[in-house]
């Protein structure tokens, strides 16, 4: 297990280094410059390039960036928030996205699990059909459509909730974005839960348990829930990553100061430091989630770590 763990961690670190290198090179290929102001003369632009060290070769800058990054310094923003340390920019924006995304994940997962089991236990009945319709809607309709509908009806027409996110009333003003984002989560989790639970319910050991007169409640919690959760947790982990890293359109609709808008603004403004640091944060979250899942699989199913370790 130790060898397996070390191997997985090494692969993750190497992936991250490779990602940063590719990002750096891609930034070089982007047209335009961070000082894309027609009112600046060439001389003034040159002064800015020198001030930010952008006149140096890309490999040299990559080396300096890596060294600084190891000290927690991601550089300063060039153009979207001049001279603000990128680390501070991300550290103030990321928690907002994480709070909203985390709440959406929690509510969506609970509702998805509950309705998924409900559908599985009522397979073929009206309840199953209703749950499947809800699931299909949740999966296929983008969250921003729900966001727009909620905003228009709940916020504007009925005046039940504020239209915009407000730092003074964060919970109240997060309800609509959280609901909008959670519907998609609910749809996916519901579908996976239903499929897995249906398979477990059809399995021989559940049939055997029923034949032994074990109660439905015990079958639900003792057999179905435990055995159908592994694939569902895998899906939830990946959903969590996408939600924590912000939802661009939903953040835009409710004016949430999250990380989604920060990335797109930085890309359009050629703010290299912000783009690289943010993409790196996204990569770290994704790679970390994969690592945790790999390690958990290894723990749960020894066949995975044996084939992974001995096979190579």
């Amino acid at each position, binding site marked *: 297990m130790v060898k397996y763990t070390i191997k997985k961690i090494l692969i993750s670190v190497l992936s991250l280094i490779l990602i940063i290198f590719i990002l750096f090179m891609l930034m070089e290929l982007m*047209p335009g410059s961070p000082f894309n102001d027609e009112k600046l003369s060439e001389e003034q632009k040159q002064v800015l390039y020198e001030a930010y060290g952008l006149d140096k070769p890309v490999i040299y800058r990559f080396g300096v960036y890596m060294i600084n990054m190891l000290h927690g310094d991601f550089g300063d923003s060039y153009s979207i928030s001049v001279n603000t340390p990128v680390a501070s920019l991300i550290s103030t924006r990321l928690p907002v996205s994480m709070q909203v995304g985390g709440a959406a994940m929690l509510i969506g997962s609970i509702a998805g699990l509950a309705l998924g089991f409900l559908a599985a236990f009522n397979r073929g009945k009206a309840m199953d059909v209703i749950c499947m319709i809800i699931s299909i809607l949740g999966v296929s309709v983008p969250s921003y459509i729900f966001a727009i509908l909620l905003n228009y009806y709940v916020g*504007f027409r009925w005046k039940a909730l504020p239209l915009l996110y407000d730092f003074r009333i964060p919970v109240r003003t997060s309800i609509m974005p959280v609901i909008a984002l959670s519907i998609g989560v609910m749809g996916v989790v519901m579908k996976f839960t239903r499929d897995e639970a249906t398979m477990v319910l059809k399995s021989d050991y559940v049939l055997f348990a029923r034949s032994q007169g074990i109660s439905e409640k015990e079958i639900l919690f003792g057999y179905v829930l435990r055995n159908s959760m592994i694939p569902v947790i895998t899906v939830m982990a990946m959903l969590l990553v996408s939600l924590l890293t912000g939802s661009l359109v939903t953040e835009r609709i409710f004016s949430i100061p999250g990380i989604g808008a*920060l990335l797109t603004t930085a890309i359009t403004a050629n703010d290299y430091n912000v783009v690289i640091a943010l993409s790196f944060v996204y990569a770290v979250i994704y790679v970390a989630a994969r690592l945790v899942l790999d390690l958990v699989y290894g723990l749960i199913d020894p066949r995975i770590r044996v084939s992974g370790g001995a096979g190579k």
Partner: protein
Amino acid sequence: MSRYVSKRYIALLTVALIVFCATACSGANESADIDAEKELNIGFANLPITMDAQMAFDSASTDYLRPMISTLFKDVNGEIKEDLAAGYEASEDGLIYTIKLRDDIKYSDGTPITAEDFVYALQRIADPLSGSSAIFVFHDICEVKNIQAVNEGQLPLSELGVSAPDDRTLVIELERPCPYFISTLATSCSAPCSRSFVEKCGSLYATKAEYILGSGPFYIDRYEPFDTQVHYSKNPYYYDSEAVKLSGISIRYVQSGQQAMMCYESGALDVINLSGSIQELAEDDENVTENASGSIFYMGTVPAHNSALKNKNIRRALIKSINRESIVRNITKRGTAPLERFIPENFSLDTNGNDYVKEPGEYSDVCAYDKEKALEYWQQGLDEINAKTLELSLICRPNDETVIEMIINEWENNLPGLSIDAKVIPAKQYWDDLDKKENDLYVAGWGADYSDPNTFLSLFISTSKYDYADLKSEKYDKLLDDAVIETDPTRRFEMLHEAEDLLMEESLYFPIYAKGNAWLISGGVKDVVFDFNGSTLDPTWVSKNR
């Protein structure tokens, strides 16, 4: 699952969701400090890139800075008035300005504002290490003595032409006379800056509310970079705090126009900027305040790339085939006006209060939409260049695409044999492409930096990089140079007028429309003031009664 378990399941889920929503909707612990009813709630579609006044030169940062800064002079609906300055004197040659400060001026922490703070502010802008874009104001618009050498690191900051003989007196020396110099001292970058405060904050200066010092009617008490909400409270140390009626201001970043409109209609926002598709929703609204003079949009020719454009009749045919009225009525709408010259109406007044534009239709013979006349010029032009057809390439930015489609449609319908190959170039690549001069026509816009015709006319002098059409007229250059040193305001406007005549006569550039701003301001909000181009809102005297 049994029916009993099913029902319990649904009941539990429903109760959990209802409890969550009810608790959150009630917001019992959250509404204590909301005072939106008494505050001015403004919606902006952009975020500031900095709250450091000396580093700010973009319009979004200026918008967010305005409530919390004061400058030596203030632009009140286009009229320059004293703000932190009590008065000024200019030397006879127009090269030295001596400005006296008010006695009772303080920052939002109660420390006094001195002349040294303005010296430090200008030095920060000129400092090569600061990389401030605002250097454009004191280097390109008006050149402060030694600023180029200081900015290139050849002279120390102390050699910059600005000094403070005493706490209340500021002296600024210029390299050459600048008739509109006082208006540059109304720009946000010339706000005072406390050296001790900046040094105390170090690299954190202006990155959060606690690292920002106000000098205006409000101070900032909530700001984080890239936040969607900035909050200001009334500054008790402001010299004219009795005139300030609002207790606070909340600026919300609302990117979507529809969202801004819903917020306005529901009362969540009192003031929003009207742009894009929401203009139609407010077409007949009496609460719209508009100004259409801050920027000009024009098309330029590049005869160096296509010799057919050296023919004046060809150019005249093109300029007379642009239906400006239709563009403004159908596409650009409120906050814009057809432009048949280079200086918009009501943009610049001389010191006697006379508008530079005396006759709006002065250049109708050159510019006004006239299909028959255009066709006449066109046929004459084609004969002169000995051609039957003409293909022209054109580049524009994504925002100008609709306007250009309309113009091309008119041209190709009205001028037989003309075909246009148009390309849309990403905004950040546009000026680099223009520098290459690889296209025949291009679309450009220019936002006024100060309310003087020179801000637009100087784009086309021989040394300007924006003269892609190569006007290169000695007479034009001389007229603009002479106008700078001319002290008689009437004579000065005459000289600028003569230059504009020459520009229109050559028809190398085709004015299309003038653009300012359109705002939707709630009926209960009074005394909103804007700057000369209607883009920056000054909330100093605003009152709200909703």
